[in-house]
C-alpha cells in the first residue's frame, strides 16, 4: 500500500486554523467538493484538440469558399488537423487511472455526459481527419499520377466529407468547455454557457495561428493568402477576449478569486490576456494599418504568441477550476446563489 498518499486537506499547508470562536462558516476550510485530477496531459490535450478541430474547420471553409487563393490553407489545415489529433487519444488514455480499460468508454453513449459525447466525437472526428488528410496526399501527388490509390482517393466526395467532419470538428473543439461546465466546480459551472464558446474561439485562433506559422515557414505562400488567415485570427481573438471579459464579470468576487490572486491569476493576466491576446492584436493591427510593416515577421510573432496564449488559457482554466473546487467559500457561494 502506498502510504505516501496525502489527502487534499493535508497538503493544503497554511490554511488550517485552530478551533474558531464562533460558529465557523465552513468546516475547517476543508474543500466541500473533490477536484478533478486533471493535469498536464489533459491541458496539452485541450490545446492540441482545439488546434486539430480548428484546422479542420478552416481547411473545409477554405475548400468550399476560398477558391484557388486558399489552396495552401486547405492543404496545411488538413495535415495539421490529423497531426494535432494523433497524440490526443494517447494523452487521454494515459490520464486514466486504469489506461488498459480505456475501451470501457465505448460501451455506452450518454448524451448528458460531455465526457461520453467527447469520446465518441473524438473517435469519429479522428476518422474524418484521417480521410481528409489521405485525400490531400492524393491531391498532392504522393501516389504518382495514375495509380489506383490516387484514383480511389480522388473519387471520394471530399467536400461532403469535409462538411460532415466540420460538425464533429466543432464538437471536439467545443465539448471540452462543456466538459468543465457540467461539474460542481463553481468557477466552471457558473460560466456554463460561455466555456464552450470560449474553447471554440480559442480553437479557431490557435488553429489559424498554427496554419499561419507553417505557411510562413514554407515557400510560395502569397501575401493575400496570409492576409485572409490573419483576418480570421483577429476575429477569433476578439471573440475570445469578449467571452473572457463576460465570463470574468459573471463570476462575482468570491468565485473569481483564483483569477484574482496567486500564480494562476498572474498567468491569466499577463499570459492569457497580455501575451496571448493584447500583444498579438496590437501586432496584427500594426500590420493592417501600416503598409510598410514587416508583415511576415509580425505575422510569425503574433501567431507564436497566440499559440502560447491558447495553451496558457487551457492551463488557467484547468488550474483555476482546481483552486475553485478547493475553496469552500466558492462552493457555498455557488450553491447559495438562488437565495433571495
Amino acid at each position: 500500500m502506498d502510504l505516501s498518499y496525502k489527502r487534499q486537506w493535508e497538503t493544503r499547508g497554511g490554511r488550517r486554523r485552530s478551533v474558531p470562536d464562533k460558529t465557523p462558516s465552513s468546516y475547517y476550510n476543508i474543500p466541500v467538493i473533490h477536484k478533478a485530477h486533471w493535469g498536464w496531459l489533459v491541458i496539452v490535450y485541450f490545446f492540441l484538440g482545439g488546434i486539430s478541430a480548428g484546422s479542420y474547420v478552416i481547411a473545409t471553409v477554405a475548400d468550399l469558399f476560398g477558391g484557388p487563393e486558399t489552396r495552401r490553407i486547405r492543404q496545411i489545415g488538413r495535415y495539421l488537423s490529423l497531426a494535432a489529433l494523433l497524440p490526443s487519444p494517447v494523452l487521454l488514455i494515459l490520464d486514466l487511472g486504469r489506461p488498459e480499460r480505456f475501451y470501457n468508454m465505448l460501451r455506452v453513449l450518454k448524451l448528458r455526459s460531455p465526457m461520453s459525447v467527447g469520446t465518441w466525437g473524438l473517435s469519429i472526428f479522428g476518422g474524418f481527419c484521417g480521410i481528409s488528410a489521405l485525400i490531400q496526399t492524393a491531391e498532392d501527388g504522393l501516389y504518382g499520377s495514375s495509380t489506383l490509390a490516387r484514383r480511389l482517393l480522388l473519387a471520394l466526395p471530399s467536400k461532403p466529407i469535409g462538411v460532415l467532419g466540420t460538425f464533429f470538428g466543432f464538437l471536439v473543439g467545443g465539448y471540452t468547455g462543456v466538459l468543465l461546465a457540467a461539474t460542481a466546480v463553481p468557477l466552471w459551472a457558473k460560466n456554463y454557457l460561455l466555456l464552450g464558446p470560449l474553447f471554440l474561439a480559442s480553437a479557431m485562433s490557435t488553429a489559424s495561428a498554427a496554419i499561419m506559422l507553417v505557411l510562413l515557414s514554407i515557400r510560395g505562400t502569397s501575401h493575400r493568402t496570409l492576409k485572409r488567415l490573419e483576418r480570421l485570427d483577429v476575429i477569433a481573438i476578439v471573440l475570445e477576449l469578449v467571452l473572457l471579459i463576460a465570463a470574468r464579470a459573471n463570476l462575482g468576487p468570491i468565485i473569481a478569486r483564483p483569477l484574482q490572486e496567486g500564480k494562476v491569476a498572474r498567468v491569466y493576466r499577463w499570459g492569457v490576456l497580455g501575451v496571448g491576446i493584447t500583444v498579438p492584436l496590437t501586432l496584427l493591427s500594426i500590420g493592417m494599418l501600416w503598409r510598410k510593416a514587416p508583415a511576415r515577421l509580425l505575422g510569425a510573432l503574433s501567431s507564436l504568441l497566440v499559440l502560447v496564449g491558447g495553451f496558457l488559457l487551457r492551463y488557467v482554466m484547468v488550474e483555476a477550476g482546481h483552486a475553485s473546487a478547493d475553496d469552500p467559500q466558492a462552493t457555498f457561494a455557488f450553491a447559495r446563489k438562488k437565495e433571495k
Partner: protein
Amino acid sequence: MMSATIPLIDKELVGQHGARPGAMGFLTDTTLCIGCKACEVACKQWNQLPMDNFGFTGNSYDNTGDLAAATWRHVAFVEQIGDGSGQRAATMAPFQSNWLMMSDVCKHCVNAGCLEACPTGAIIRTEFDTVVIQQDICNGCGYCLPACPYGVPALSSTDHKAHKCTLCYDRMDSGLEPACAKACPTDSIQFGPVTALMEHAQTRVADLQSRGVANAYLYGDRAIGGTGGIDGNNAFFILTAEPEVYNLPAYPELPQDKVGRAFLTTFGAALALGVAAVVALRG
C-alpha cells in the same frame, strides 16, 4: 419554527422527495450522534477498506477529514466553544451540547451527478434506488469527482479507480442493514425505505422543535440539500445548524442539467465562427 439562520427558499417543498418505489436509504439524525465513529469503523471492516492516511488535522477530534476513496462514512466534529465574542458560552442549546457531530455519507441522490457523468456506465442505479460504482467497469477517468456537488466519490491511490459508499449493496442483497447503521449505538444512523424514513424524519424534526431545538431541520429533500434537479437524496440528515457548518452545500444543482444549454451556446458560437471563417477566407 424554522430559525432565521437556516434559509429555506421553498417551505412548501419540505419533506418532498423524488425517490422511486422501493428506494432504501439512510436517515442520519445528528441530534443523536455522540461522535463514537463506530460507523466509520464498521464501514471499514465490512467493506475491507484500507487506511486512507495516518495524519493529524489539528482541527478537532476529527482526523478523518472528509469522505475519500477508502472512507465512506466520515464523522464531522464541530466544536462551538465560544459565543462569538471570545467568551466561553454561558448557555447551551436545549437538548444538545455545543458540540455538533454528524456522520457524513454518500447522499445516493435521486438524480445523481456522478452517475450521469460516468462515461463508461460503471456507475449504476440499483434495485434499491442506490448509486453504486461497478469496480470491474470503472477505468479511473475521474469525471465523477468534480461532478458530485457533495464531494463524495474519490480516486484510490492503490487501484486508481473511483470509490464511494455502496449503501452496503451486498448486505442489503442478503436482507441485512448496512454496516454503519447496524453498528450505530444511538440509532443516529437509521436505515429503511425512504418513504417511511422521510415520514419519520419529519415527525422527529417537529418533535425536536417542540422541545426547543428551533434550528432542527431536514437536509436532503427538495427544499434543501436535494435541490436543483437532484430531486432529493436517499440518504438525508437532520441538522441543527446551517448546512455549511457541516461542509454541505445548501442548494446544490445537478450539473448535467446544464449540458443541453451549454451545447446550444457552443453550437451557436460554432455557427458564428463558421460564418466568420467564410467571410475572412473568401477574400
